[in-house]
């Protein structure tokens, strides 16, 4: 038989699996079981409060008590955080603001020693940052306030916090919850600093109904715009 005769060539199996392929199936099963535990664990740990930092409550150089100043004394948020309606950043007050009152009140309290020193020396008080967004996310306080988002929606009940902590996850998913359905959170602009605001008790309307009115009144954009990447990332 001539070797190059194509008609008489021995039949060749089209598919020839190597021997190690026999182990492929058990390997896949093992991998599936592994991934089945790995991925949920990853998801649970990744989304857990300890990862998103909810409850982060650093010790501040001065034990400033929001509960006392806001709830008991009734000082409006904007007395100290004065740039919140005009700027991206709700500026921490300069020491001067503290001294407006504390030049006369509790002038010898040892707790206020860092404040007095800061004012005398002109050096800043090194506050610990509590609400910290990633650097690629650009949050603008003024823009949110102009659309009727209250302080408490993100910061929680500050007036019940002797020591401020992070009450919300501040994760992207959490941001988008509101950007997709702002109607769950809007309130009249004159109520933004109201810590205990409740739609029904104050206006007699349910939150969703009121918010839909406000959404139109304040020209709140629809979710196509609100969930665009460039809305928050630059």
């Amino acid at each position: 038989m001539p070797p190059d005769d194509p008609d008489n060539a021995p039949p060749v199996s089209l598919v020839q699996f190597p021997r190690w392929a026999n182990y492929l199936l058990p390997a896949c099963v093992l991998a599936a079981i592994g991934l089945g535990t790995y991925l949920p664990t990853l998801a649970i740990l990744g989304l857990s409060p300890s990862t998103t930092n909810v409850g982060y409550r650093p010790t501040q150089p001065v034990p400033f008590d929001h509960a006392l100043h806001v709830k008991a004394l009734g000082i409006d948020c904007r007395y100290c955080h004065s740039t919140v309606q005009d700027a991206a950043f709700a500026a921490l007050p300069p020491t001067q603001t503290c001294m407006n009152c504390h030049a006369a009140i509790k002038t010898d309290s040892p707790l206020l020693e860092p404040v007095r020193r800061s004012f005398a020396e002109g050096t800043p008080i090194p506050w610990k940052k509590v609400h910290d967004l990633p650097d690629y996310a650009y949050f603008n306080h003024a823009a949110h306030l102009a659309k009727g988002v209250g302080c408490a929606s993100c910061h929680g009940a500050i007036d019940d916090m002797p020591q401020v902590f992070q009450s919300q996850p501040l994760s992207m998913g959490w941001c988008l919850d509101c950007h997709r359905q702002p109607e769950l959170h809007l309130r009249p602009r004159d109520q933004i600093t109201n810590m205990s605001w409740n739609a029904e008790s104050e206006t007699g309307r349910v939150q969703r109904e009121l918010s839909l009115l406000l959404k139109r009144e304040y020209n709140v954009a629809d979710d196509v715009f609100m969930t665009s990447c460039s809305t928050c990332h630059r």
Partner: protein
Amino acid sequence: MPSLNPELEGRTYWRSLAQRAAAESGHGCADLGDEFAAYEPPAAGGHTRRQFLSLMAAAMGLAGLTLPGCRRWPEQEVLPFASRPEGISPGEALWYATMIERDGVALGVLARSYDGRPIKLEGNPAHPDSLGAADALTQASILDLYDPDRSRAVLLRAAGQAQPRISSWDHFRTDLRQRLDALRAGPPGSRSGEGLVILSQVTASPTITRLREQFEQSWPGAVWRTFAPLHRDHEVQGSELAFGQPLRTQLDLAAAQVIACFDADLLGGHPSRQRLARGWSAGRDSGDQGRMNRLYVVESAMTLTGSVADHRLPLPPSQIAAAVAQLAGHLGVAAPAASLSPHPGGDRWIAQLASDLLAHQGQAVIAVGPAQPPAVHALAHAINQRLAAFGHAVRFTEEPDRGRAAPDLADAQQRIDAGQVHTLVMLGGNPVFDGGLKFTISDTAAGPGHVGAAIHLGTHYNESSAASTWHLPQAHELECWGDGRAWDGTISIQQPLILPLFGGRSVIELLAMLAGESATDGRLLVQQTLRPMIGGVDFDGAWRQALRDGVVAGSAWPTTRPGVTRAVPAEEFEERRKMNEERGGVVGSSARSSFFVPRSSPHVLEVLFIADSSVHDGRFANNGWLQEMPDPVTQLVWDNAALMSVTDTQRLGLALGDMVELQAGGRTLRMPVMIQPGVAAGTVVLPMGYGRRVVGRVGLGVGHDVYPLRPATQPYILALDMLRRTGERYDLVMTQEHHLIDAQGFRARAQRAGKPNESGLLIHDGTLDDYRGNQDLFQHKGHGIALKLFDPPHAFNEPHAWGMAIDLNKCIGCNACLVACQAENNVPIVGKQEVARHREMHWLRVDRYYKGDTENPQVVHQPLACVHCETAPCEQVCPVAATVHDSEGLNTMVYNRCIGTRYCSNNCPYKVRRFNYFDWHSRSPRTTGDTPPWLGIPDRQQAQRVDKLAAMVFNPEVTVRMRGVMEKCTYCTQRIQAARIGAKLEHAAGRRQEETVRDGEVVPACAGTCPTQAIVFGDLNDPKSKVSRLHANARAYGMLDDLLALRPRTQYLAKLRHPAVSGIKETHP
């Protein structure tokens, strides 16, 4: 040259000679299609790709196991003011009007500052030399403020010591007092101050002028000399020749219909270039109405002005004078007889120019560049007078520059050589490097070449500092008070935005110290000067107004209208003629083969020294942005080279990157050669400022120093004795073949380009006459079918539809947009080695295309950034949806989603996406070898490794990208957001009717700084917006849109050329 492939003729453009050669041979170019050129796995730390991948897989598995434990939010502090100044809102930008002086001319800028940290310079619309634009050098000078290599302390180098020691201002002040006391006493019979030499830079600052007068009065024996390497001596002396007094020429190109430049780079090299470019572009703007100015350029190098000329005649530098003389002859202006006989066609060219100029009397102007001798300038004045340009396109004002930079430096050197200098004070600058100043320090009696002490004030420790006794850190322009005058004399005040970072002092503060004044407060010094000059009764009010506006209104010099009083001396021309004759003996021969003389003959080649587009005269050598900015014409980065014509290099057998030795007057120089289409045959163009020996880490030893070849007597033009190939090779890195849009379809392009005299694939262009006859000239469809792959999910127009228009007819390729984008968007630099691997990061590049003859090609500059296609191909291939559209048509890039597959870049037809191979910001651009810092956790690495000072220039409104992510133009989305939020807040406060952004409220960095306003951005929803009107223009086209149906939001407007109707043969010989 062999003729082109006929199918590629017509309006076919080429980027480089290699590309053109490939087109001719019919083969694709080997390196051209390679987007990720020379990607070498060794960069991954010596592992093979497979090893690396398996290591990465294992590492990721382990990382997953320890995920919750390894990431904690970094603890950050917030530091509020102890007492916040009024009007300051933390995190909000503030704008200040100030100025930066360069070459004796103040450029008005608006500086943007965040929390006391200036981060960006823009042009000041109120300033006559800015008109809202800032050139590339000005944009980049903010980087010098935060240069980690800046001079940080007073340094004292005692005689005999090699290295300086750190000293203090107090010590310097004490030492200075002793020196001045010794000078005041002096030897018997001498005048007070004899032996004191001040060497300052050319300046028009009123305060420095005032202090100089004071100084000269109190130190009558002292000598004040002024020097700048890029001086305009010839120009000033030329006006003296013509008018009997130095006068400054004020050109108004908007008033000219015919402009002729003789070796004058008005748009790219003139101190008042922004204003001139605006004037020129005003004459192009009317192209749609069927009128346009016409630009003639005679030049030796290929300059920006030459690149946008309607007619260009390349001539070697020595023949420019003959060309002007010949033109004068045609116009009936008395001038020596001259001929361009060695250049067939040259005579006809000039004759055509003359008749065009005569036809436009009163609307025609000629300009001559600073390299040409004074007599040529004088002749040009006479010609302009003949053309009735005086009072229209040409006006004259007083000239603060004394036009004596070269003799001044020579005089200083002479005094040093004679041993007469007790104390030498250098007020800024770097005369040891760029002027060849030589001196030795000796404590004892000064001998020849010795000075008692040299004091150098400079922002950086440079060659002059190293030679001096004292080096004093100079304050950056943004750190100190000062003043200056625009080209037309308008006074600007320079106000500081930040305290001196390293205790630097300004020139005026040092001068006050020299005068022995106790108060050396810069602000008081400037106020003292300006008090009699501005304001009258209410000085404080006028001062505040001037600070706010950035200019003192009405302070420009009054214009005069002199007549040319003197005849032009013939000797100047005689000298040129002789030089030509020497070459003419051979060159004049008609046989083509002997057009170029054999190498051994003398005076064959002439050198033209030009300012480098990146480092200027060398002062920006340590500026990474400028080093990496491709030269607009050569596209060379991180280097200079001897630029030679194609014919010369062919004749001499030189290839790109060959090292040559140049000899002139006994001086030699070794340089790599670059073949530059458009350079006149017989010319070697040498850009100055490279090869710095004492400079920071960025600029040290980059490029080749050409100053040693430059004699003080012939500062710009020089006959070369010899040019010889050394046999060595040198790597020149150019971006001109990077990111080729049509690399893949290179061979198919011959068909795509269609018949001759149609627009090319990427560039649409035509002549004004054709366009007048056919408004549809630039509108044609490639496929002829409406290609539609899918229905777009959205119209991308809510609430705005952003778009851009770039007018190729107005772009001059000046690179200002490129640097503005870099500054605005925290774009890193990568270094020469990485640019060679096509890894440069510029979001916006300015492509430069040639067409036609290699000796004198037509040029188009095309700025190209992401065009934001509505059907973006990049989005369809991203596996993680890291690049998606937003509701307004921006193709957004989400850094935190990107996993670095680079599929998007592969699929981008325009090649505008850039990948962070490394953490560029934390890596020195001069790193050689593969030792990148990339083993840290990526998002912490920057905080740990980026220099704290260098990080201060970052724009806080833009994310600083980490390694491993893709990035690209965002249409300056941060500026869109700022305008949008601003509008919303005003609306909420009841100060504004509508909540949407108005036309003109969003200006991206590139558009804002464009000197010719070629880039326009705005809302396509608004039919009345500027950009909508431009998109509706008959010249508008979407690049590649007819082939790929990408619906790009950036549209280009076709380039119009305006050749004379009778036509001039552009090519020669």
